[in-house]
């Protein structure tokens, strides 16, 4: 197989506000704006950002749970938007989703066994014995005892329910799992168990993940590459190592600086970024981050910065740190988020 498993091109989603009856123009929420990325087989691509940045809308667009306003989603080179009912149905086997809330995403009236075998029964009839064998197999894959198949979700702990959600996603042997804040509702000790499970599954079965999260420490731990989103757009996309060692976009930098670190000896020198995320109904002109950005110049207030490739392979949308030229530029900021870098940030602000 050539080319990436998943390719997303210029994906855009606008939600109209109201019906616009008797009005010429309807205001829209620009939830996702011109988002492009790809995912290779067996890779984990993380999407991080704060509430309202569009990361969950991207997940729904990938699953075609909502229709895009523009752009394409290609699986193995096939545009899923063009697929008719049957083809779409078949294609869904390749891609499954795990949700944040293990309490509301499982049918409370079905047993664990029924929940996890249901996806398969959408495609083929299973005998009682086949169903039991499949349920037992899936439960073992997610580290649960096969006896659990007769339990109801209400009889399981939060961690066990999230394992069920993952087992259900595995039922059809997908090549890609989209995990939307899959560990965010879990306690840290349970979160560690689920993250280990995801890493094991990827190693054993070669599954690719689109892992959507607001938690940077989790993303840094399990991701191969990360896309940082702000107000509907990707502002930086890089390998995990590069992004966390040396963030280039001022928003990435602010996000990393804001995350609390479990080390009381660390001295926080940099003041937290000011202001709040603006409304996606009426986003600021130019770069959406400019009202909060310590580096903003006039151009940032007028022109939307394009994603510019840098020498180390990452892309960054920032007029100041990644000015658009014909040759790939060096990242403007050399260093890391060590003391020297933090100090330089402090001096600038």
């Amino acid at each position: 197989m050539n080319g990436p498993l998943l390719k997303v091109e210029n994906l855009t989603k606008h939600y109209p506000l109201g019906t616009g009856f008797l009005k010429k123009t309807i205001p829209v929420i620009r939830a996702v704006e011109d988002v492009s990325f790809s995912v290779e087989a067996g890779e984990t691509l993380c999407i991080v950002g704060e509430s309202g940045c569009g990361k969950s809308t991207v997940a729904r667009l990938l699953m075609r749970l909502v229709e895009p306003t523009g752009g394409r989603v290609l699986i193995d080179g096939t545009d899923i938007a063009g697929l008719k009912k049957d083809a779409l149905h078949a294609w869904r086997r390749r891609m499954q989703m795990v949700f944040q809330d293990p309490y509301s995403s499982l049918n409370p009236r079905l047993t664990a066994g029924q929940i996890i075998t249901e996806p398969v029964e959408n495609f083929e009839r299973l005998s009682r014995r086949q169903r039991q064998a499949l349920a037992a197999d899936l439960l073992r894959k997610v580290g649960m005892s096969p006896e659990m198949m007769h339990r109801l979700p209400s009889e399981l702990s939060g961690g066990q329910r999230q394992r069920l959600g993952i087992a259900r996603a595995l039922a059809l042997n997908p090549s890609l799992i989209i995990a939307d804040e899959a560990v965010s509702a879990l306690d840290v000790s349970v979160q560690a168990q689920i993250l280990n499970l995801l890493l094991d599954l990827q190693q054993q079965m070669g599954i690719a993940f689109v892992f959507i999260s607001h938690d940077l420490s989790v993303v840094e731990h399990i991701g191969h590459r990360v896309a940082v989103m702000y107000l509907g757009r990707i502002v930086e996309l890089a390998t995990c190592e590069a992004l966390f060692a040396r963030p280039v976009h001022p928003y990435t930098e602010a996000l990393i600086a804001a995350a609390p670190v479990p080390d009381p000896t660390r001295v926080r020198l940099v003041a937290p970024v000011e202001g709040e995320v603006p409304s996606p109904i009426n986003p600021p002109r130019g770069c959406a981050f400019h009202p909060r950005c310590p580096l903003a110049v006039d151009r940032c207030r007028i022109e939307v910065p394009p994603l510019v490739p840098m020498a180390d392979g990452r892309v960054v949308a920032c007029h100041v740190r990644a000015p658009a030229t014909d040759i790939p530029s060096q990242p403007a900021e050399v260093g890391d988020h060590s003391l020297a870098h933090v100090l330089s940030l402090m001096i600038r602000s």
Partner: protein
Amino acid sequence: MLMQKSAGNDVLLDVRDLETHFVGDESTTRALGGISFQVKKGETLGVVGESGCGKSVTALSILRLLPKMNARTVGGEVRFHGRDLLELSDREMRQIRGDQIAMIFQEPMTSLNPVYTVGRQIAEAVQIHTKASRSVAMAKAQEMLRLVRIADPERRVNNYPHEMSGGMRQRAMIAMALACSPELLIADEPTTALDVTIQAQILRLIADLKERTGTAVMFITHDLGVVAETCQRVIVMYAGSIVEQANVIDLFARPAHPYTQGLMRSVPDQRRGRQRRLPEIPGIVPSLREPIVGCSFAPRCPFAIDICREKTPILRDVGSSHAAACWRAEEVMGA
């Protein structure tokens, strides 16, 4: 010998053997199994633990805010200025709440009244506890909004809660809590529902205000990162008990309880390598409906030996102002 006993003049709140049960039709849940700790004047005390460990119940028991229907504080004392809060009448308790002891919650939207303006709600808190007139109280409300760095407080004072963002509402809650200059602020997961950049702003705000007013803060959180950044002393809770208590530096440098150690190791940390399996705490939290024999953490503990399954360890000193409820704490600290 135990640090709780060395109660000096700097102790603001002295909790002794506090025990709270939830009574159901069929069973009783021992949510708090007799905990003792102190909050000192002007300090920030972190209370950390996972869901169901009793950290919020502790706060609500102190302020007597638990539903009377099924919650019973069956034993212990909560000493504040020499008085036991558990002995006070409802009226006396109301005078203390919001005045000398204030509380902020995780979700400001549910704790603010949606039908009154934010300014009026802050002013109401001021009027209840001082003899201030309406206009003086409103002026105070505006001043408080400025103090918590809400831009344009003259206008914001007339906003309803839904007209504010999540971060702004939490600022307004803090303004309300601090309006009467409390000696103790109990903050229950105040930044958990907020985005990380807003969380950083609110943590900075609480630290600044604490510095300025000298208010002691009891900071309840599940987030070890937040604890490391905001607290001076920390209490770690597990299954309704305090399992460890230490100053923040010692706690992170040499955790003495296997649960604390397990919790810290299960947080992803790049210094220990990416894409690696994280050390897990096996098993799940025990049910508090059944009586627990021995140490409540023993079934999940890599250090557990026979005595752990038979006798409940009590909190004991393992260093200067460092205590742990573990039979093998010294070995845990060395591990």
